[in-house]
């Protein structure tokens, strides 16, 4: 035994080298940990990551054109979109054959809605043509070009063909271009007409207003958190209930309450008029604009700022402040040089929470935002639930996600994510 210990590697009790034995034990430990979190991991993967990935995938997916009109897309490949002429008879024959099948499977109107996002009128063009093609006979009704011209003269214009050709690939950058106020033109990407540009402005507004809301949450939340942290436990707990109370009220009720408060015939304006501070015919406009959105969202998100601040401040021993003062610091110096730096991790955590929550906020801006206080999420909601343009909604969502991740990365580089504490 002594020979082995001096010449060979260190061995464990069962005779295997200690290194291998140790790594095996560690691996087993890791496996056990992995098994323990496996249910949650699977749950998150299946119910969270997968649906989001599937939704984001729609921002580039564009198989419908090729699947509905396979022959047409093939025949159209040689057509020159800049010729200013509609393609020739073979393309129309292919279209008739494709539409015949599409009508039976009822996919032609779906394609029409899809192309209508790019070319106004495609929806009714396909609905109308589907009905007519159903009555056509593929064998005897040639030539088809005249037949389609009879159905709708748009078929012999180049526009619809250009759109079909541009959107025939299985994957498209069209949705993403649309999401940054651009479009696919004959010569590649180009800016949309100025009277249709909206998304870049909404992205900027969303970021700006989220920053303002985060800022006002810090200003309002910091003193509250400080008081809570420095009061005796019993009083603090009582006050804590007041902070948490809004959590237990419906979001809609709270938002509507702000409407009652802020509107022109509302409580605040009534009081101001009664006090004589504001003339009756010049009541303040405080709702259905940016101001209303910032006020209502600051109120709703405030607890997310106060709670992390409070739990960090609780861990700062009051003796530090006393020590600073006994060494001659003024109240302000003691606070600013000693207390505040220690509370920064709480501000960091609260800011991240509030900022990320507000950047994706939807319901409050919808109700109190009017036209100047709406966020990008309101447009995403419109495209998901109303216009059914899920591709564009997904592209907008993907950009928003990328922006948040980028900001998070920048935050980590500048402040350091280790510097964020949610408590203790």
């Amino acid at each position, binding site marked *: 035994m002594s020979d082995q210990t001096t010449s060979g590697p260190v061995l464990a009790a069962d005779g295997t080298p200690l290194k291998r034995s140790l790594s095996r034990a560690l691996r087993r430990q890791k496996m056990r940990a992995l098994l323990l979190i496996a249910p949650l991991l699977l749950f998150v993967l299946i119910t969270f990551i997968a649906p989001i990935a599937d939704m984001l995938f729609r921002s580039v997916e564009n198989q419908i054109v090729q699947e509905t009109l396979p022959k047409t897309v093939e025949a159209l490949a040689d057509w020159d979109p800049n010729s200013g002429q509609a393609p020739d008879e073979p393309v129309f024959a292919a279209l008739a054959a494709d539409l015949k099948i599409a009508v039976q499977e009822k996919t032609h109107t779906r394609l029409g809605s899809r192309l209508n996002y790019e070319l106004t009128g495609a929806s009714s063009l396909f609905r109308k043509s589907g009905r007519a093609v159903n009555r056509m006979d593929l064998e005897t009704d040639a030539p088809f070009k005249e037949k389609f011209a009879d159905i709708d003269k748009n078929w012999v214009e180049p526009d619809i063909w250009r759109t079909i050709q541009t959107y025939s690939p299985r994957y498209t950058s069209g949705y993403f271009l649309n999401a940054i106020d651009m479009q696919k033109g004959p010569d590649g990407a180009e800016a949309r007409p100025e009277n249709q540009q909206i998304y870049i402005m909404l992205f900027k507004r969303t970021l700006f207003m989220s920053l303002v809301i985060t800022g006002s949450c810090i200003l309002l939340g910091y003193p509250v958190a400080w008081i809570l942290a420095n009061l005796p436990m019993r009083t603090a707990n009582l006050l804590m209930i007041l902070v948490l109370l809004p959590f237990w009220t419906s979001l809609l009720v709270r938002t509507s309450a702000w409407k009652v408060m802020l509107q022109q*015939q*509302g409580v605040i304006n009534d009081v101001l008029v009664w006090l004589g501070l504001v003339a009756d015919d010049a009541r303040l406009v405080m709702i259905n604009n940016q101001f209303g959105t910032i006020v209502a969202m600051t109120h709703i998100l405030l607890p997310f700022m106060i709670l992390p601040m409070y739990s960090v401040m609780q861990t700062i021993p009051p003796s530090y402040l006393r020590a600073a003062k006994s060494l001659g610091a003024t109240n302000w110096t003691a606070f600013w040089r000693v207390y505040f730096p220690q509370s920064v991790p709480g501000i960091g955590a609260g800011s991240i929470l509030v900022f990320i929550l507000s950047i994706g906020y939807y319901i409050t801006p919808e109700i109190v935002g009017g036209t100047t206080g709406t966020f990008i999420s309101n447009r995403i909601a419109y495209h998901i639930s109303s216009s059914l343009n899920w591709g564009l909604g997904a592209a907008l969502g993907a950009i928003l996600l990328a922006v948040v991740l980028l900001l998070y990365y920048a935050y980590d580089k500048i402040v350091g994510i280790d510097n964020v504490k949610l408590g203790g």
Partner: protein
Amino acid sequence: MRPTRILLATTSLTLAAGLASAQDMTNDMTLVSWGGAYQASQQNAYVEPYLAMHPEVTAVWDESSNEAVAKLRAMNEAGNITWDLVDVVASDAIRLCDEGLAMEYDPDELLAPGDDGTPASEDFGDLIVSECFIPQIVYSTTFGYRTDLVGDTPPTKICDVFDLDAYPGKRALEKRPINNMEWALLCDGVAKEEVYDVLATPEGQEKALAKLDTIKDSVIWWSAGADTPQLLADGEVVMGSTYNGRLFSVIEEQKQPVAMLWDAQVFDLDGWIIPAGLPEDRLARVKDFVRFATDTQRLADQAKFISYGPGRASSAPLVGQHAELGIEMAPHMPTDPNNAQNTFLYNYEFWADYRDDIDAKFQAWLAK
């Protein structure tokens, strides 16, 4: 793909069930509607009578009509349709039909003939705007105004909405181009029959937005039908557009100082669609229910609870008094000759084509 396989599995299951007995009907129905007074009118007029006739059946409401199109599409992709009958506005029905999410039906086979013997396809007539759409009611989007805030000369014409000198104060308009663009053109001197020709051109769209621009600073934009009645009741706005049934309830049920401005009201339709791909036994139950719920008497009964006109021509003479207020309902119907002197019918085909394009311009204009 997985959804297809699930779909196949369900179809084969239903086939097996169908073979066992063609008359099998499930006893559970999930009906989708808008909630509020409208859903209550449906509950009172035909769901409760139906349940009384068939005690073994239970009906569950899902108040999701607002998001019906998106939800049905998601259900369809997941291969699991949980709804049996969905109440949607006609434009959504057309969209669902285009997307293949709603079932096409034959009116004369599915729906009962009128009580005067008229076949359903004639009784509903032009209101069947899509092969999938089963009409229930005609409603209109129109204006209401505060009688105490408009002085001695109450507004009588749609263009008074654009007249800030005669009627200063805020107006409530819906946050979408539909209807607003038509009204703007009409008040910019475009003849009624040319409105959609003009609106189809970029210049016409600019013209309409320019007209709306003249009152933009005085507009509160609404997105929920309940907004305008509330704004009127609070005195926040002088006048505002909303659905006529909402105004009826503000005026007659809540007794607010509000009156109707029927001029240039826009008719629209609301009705049922049956989701595509229902299993045989559920479809059988839904068909049985729909036949009952859209017959002449049931549609006339609905008008006792809400001021929307019945979708059948044969129901109109049967419209009586309000179930609780006891007032005659006929003068409150948007279709009443006195109210319908100057009307629009929602142009479904136009908006199906132009909605995406004009909405982009409208929203960009709004955000400016």
